[in-house]
């Protein structure tokens, strides 16, 4: 293989341009949608021969760079709600810890793995389909943006939100709600993300849109801000506990991803809210489809190494 570089922690050689290009594509998605892209990057890295544990840990390191790049771009454009982001982050960190503990408990119950995966696939399928048709309808009708349309609707959920204490205003998102909401929702996403072993960006997006009722462009920037800190934490922990962060691998990926994230953030700003939402719905459905295919199609090998996503 020409232009191959040896990765000292992964202990394998990989084509330099393949890594930079891969970083570019995933970084673009990250800047566009506000997701980390681990769901895409980690399996591809494993496919090209990186050990699963090193792939997942080094990808976290790369996401730090892409999300820092994306957060910076969105922050300059005023589309990061730092107040909401910090509250979500607090919940997310607590949820991550609870999720790790919960998974140990569930695994003792036997087929926990099966039920967790199925629940996740069903959840993604439901959320993705809802988002898709909701934004498709909005695009067809050329109505006002979703956020304004739904806030007026007096639903049980809206009444529940109004009844919660510690109300505060989030000027950047133009919403007033209980400070407990982002903490609780962040906690739930954190639990789910820890159980599934993925970053959880694409669960956080619908949560922000539908449950916190944040405007689309603030959603992307705030999601990136939260991902930045989550992945910083994961990278340091993975390096300290498991020694699985390959800096050479992460550097090559981030060369592509920081540029991709900038391009993605610019494209994101040019898209209309419903256009962006329908693309997000497609991404969520693609992730769901990939997980479903992984479950249904016979695997290449009947054995897998331990670790990874």
């Amino acid at each position: 293989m020409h232009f191959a570089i040896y990765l000292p922690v992964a202990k394998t050689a990989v084509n330099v341009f393949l890594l930079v290009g891969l970083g570019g594509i995933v970084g673009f998605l990250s800047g566009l949608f506000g997701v980390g892209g681990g769901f895409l990057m980690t399996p591809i890295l494993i496919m090209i021969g990186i050990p699963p544990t090193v792939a997942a840990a080094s990808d976290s390191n790369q996401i730090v760079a892409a999300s820092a790049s994306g957060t910076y771009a969105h922050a300059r454009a005023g589309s990061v709600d730092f107040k909401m982001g910090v509250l979500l982050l607090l919940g997310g960190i607590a949820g991550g810890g609870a999720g790790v503990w919960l998974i140990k408990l569930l695994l003792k119950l036997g087929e926990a793995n099966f039920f967790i995966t199925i629940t996740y696939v069903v959840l993604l399928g439901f959320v993705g389909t809802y988002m898709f048709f909701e934004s498709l309808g909005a695009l067809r009708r050329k109505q006002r943006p979703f956020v304004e349309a739904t806030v007026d609707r007096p639903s049980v959920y809206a009444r529940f939100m109004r009844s919660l204490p510690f109300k505060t205003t989030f000027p950047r998102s133009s919403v007033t709600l209980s400070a407990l909401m982002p903490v609780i929702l962040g906690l739930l996403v954190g639990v789910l993300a820890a159980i599934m072993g993925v970053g959880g960006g694409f669960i956080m997006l619908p949560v922000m849109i539908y449950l916190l009722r944040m405007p689309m462009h603030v959603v992307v920037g705030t999601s990136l801000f939260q991902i930045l800190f989550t992945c910083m934490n994961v990278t340091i922990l993975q390096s300290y506990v498991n020694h699985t962060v390959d800096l050479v691998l992460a550097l090559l990926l981030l060369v592509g991803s920081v540029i991709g994230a900038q391009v993605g953030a610019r494209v994101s700003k040019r898209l209309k809210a419903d256009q962006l939402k329908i693309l997000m719905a497609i991404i969520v459905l693609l992730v769901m489809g990939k997980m479903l295919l992984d479950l249904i199609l016979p695997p290449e090998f009947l054995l897998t190494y331990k670790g990874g996503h």
Partner: protein
Amino acid sequence: MRQLRLRVRLLCMYAAAWAIAPGVAFAALEETPRAVIQLVPEEVEANLFFNGAKVEVQGTVLPGYEVAILCGGKASHLALRRKGKVWGVLWMSVGDVAFDHIPSLYLLNTSAPLAGLAPPAVLEQLGIGYPALAALAGQDGEEQPFFQELVKIKEKEGIFAVHEGAVKLVPGAGGIRQVRAECALPSTVPMEGYEVQLFGFKEGNGELLCSKSMEVTQVGLARFMSSLVEGRPLLHGVFAVIVAVAAGLLTGLVFGGSSKKPH
């Protein structure tokens, strides 16, 4: 009379020489090693541009032998996740499979098909061929399919390979044959010491004729990076995060000049 004595003495010496000659010749033959090998190179260095390496095995073997050259690593216990169907539809991890004595590297080259070298029991005793490895790993009988899966994974990584007929035996002076083979180390080769062994097979029997050690080590920046990860993991993690954040912000600054407010 004196001449007669001299002739008798010479005759005795001649007879004695004839008597001991086969023994001397045999001793000379015994001293000649039955096989010798050299490795080029004996030490493989992995820097940041390491993309696997080819190690040439050169040597000689006495006539009449077929040979197997094994480049093998340390054996250890290995546990993997086993995939199976849940509810008859979905493929998921359903448990663990453990293997004993799985070498970190197993590159086998032979001068003839494995079946023609020796009976299976002899090959198994010497650890030559996958069936022998399966027996060592405690994976025979019903568990054999999992061992075959492991071999498929390791072969894809380039860590396991069996090339029958890949050793060249070239006739040389005095009937001694030149041995030529190549061990293709993949870039995934673990950084450790290896043993290259030459086994000889004759008339259904087999034995280890000679071996040579080989070392694969990381050097330069690759070595520095792995020693940082192993020796100072927290510092490495913090450094990795700082580099990533700096790279992200720097790109943001470079690209950030024309940022517009969202609509």
